[in-house]
């Protein structure tokens, strides 16, 4: 119970001792999800690590890294893995449902509105403006993710990236086929590079 009184320092000792109830998990994830405009990750980190102290920052990063490199929506995977860690499979389902059900109801209501009023010119124009800005935001995320590759001068990484961009974005090949070729190729090249480096180091 020290976590109630202790200040914001987050060490392992600070982590809450009793796991939250299924109800608490559901509502905690619903809250993060509904405050998550443009991505839920930031809010999930704040709630799980800082607010509820269910995990240390390090555990959170490790769990997120796992979910990031498995297929599927990362934050949804995280909710499932995290909920199950605290409360078994029912906990995973509670977190999963909390994350998805409330915003899904909301977006379905928006979709119904769009169906009714989507033909109105001003609304369409407004939405078109939003989507232009959203594309710009996405571009800035891509730049930000690219900059470590550019700084390291990672030629192989940049070539793989460009190849995927051309195959998927310009040629519009099916994702499955591109990944079935690109993932083994990228793994092999990365493996060869690490192996060459360790050999030189000897």
């Amino acid at each position, binding site marked *: 119970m020290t976590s109630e009184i202790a200040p914001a320092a987050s060490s392992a000792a600070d982590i809450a001792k009793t796991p939250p109830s299924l109800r608490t998990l559901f509502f905690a994830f619903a809250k993060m999800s509904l405050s*998550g405009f443009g991505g839920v990750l930031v809010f999930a980190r704040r709630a799980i690590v800082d607010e509820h102290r269910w995990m240390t920052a390090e555990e959170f990063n490790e769990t997120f890294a796992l979910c990031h490199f498995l297929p599927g929506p*990362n934050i949804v*995977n995280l909710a499932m893995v995290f909920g199950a860690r605290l409360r078994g499979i029912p906990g995973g389902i509670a977190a999963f449902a909390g994350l998805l059900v409330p915003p899904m109801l909301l*977006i379905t209501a928006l979709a119904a509105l769009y169906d009714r009023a989507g033909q109105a010119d001003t609304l369409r124009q407004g*939405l*078109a403006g939003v*989507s232009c800005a*959203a594309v710009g*935001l996405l571009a800035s995320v891509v730049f930000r993710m690219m900059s470590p590759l550019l700084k390291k001068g990672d030629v192989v990484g940049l070539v793989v990236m460009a190849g995927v961009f051309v195959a998927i974005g310009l040629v519009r090949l099916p994702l499955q086929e591109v990944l079935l070729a690109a993932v083994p190729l990228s793994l092999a090249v990365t493996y060869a590079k690490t192996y060459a480096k360790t050999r030189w180091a000897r």
Partner: protein
Amino acid sequence: MSGDDNPLFQLFWTFALISLFAVGGAVAAIPELHRVAVDVRHWMTDKQFADAFALSQLSPGPNVLIVALIGYSVAGVGGAAAATIAMCGPTAILSYVVSRWLANARDLRWPAMLQAALVPLSIGLMAASTWVLGVASDQTWRAFALTVMAAVVASLTRLNPLWLLAAGGCLGFAGLL
């Protein structure tokens, strides 16, 4: 599978299959969602897809909910639910299984090599998403200029992205694009 007439089954199989290949998260899967929904199945037009993306960015929650909008356009509320469950359920179960397996072999660190190999792939996929959505959204040079402005502002400042979306909406609403 594709011969099945029930749209809910069609939605379910389509999205479950896509999700298993959605390396790098929901946004990285957008080109494939667009290819399937617009080019292959003709569930939506290019413009409707861009609108769905805008709506999914405007409303709170995980970005993956764009699939709920695609599902809704095919089969209403049931379609939205089927698409969301298909896109999120199987991979969540997979994540659970892998996390259990890793927890049992604790000394086995999550290999940095896999990360190094997959990062360039997911950046390439996100760049492709930007391109596909840009082609659908930026029909005029003014629209394109707005996209470039938003990219520059978002890269150079820490402004809350919602303000940029709102500014874009206002410019569009005023008929300036």
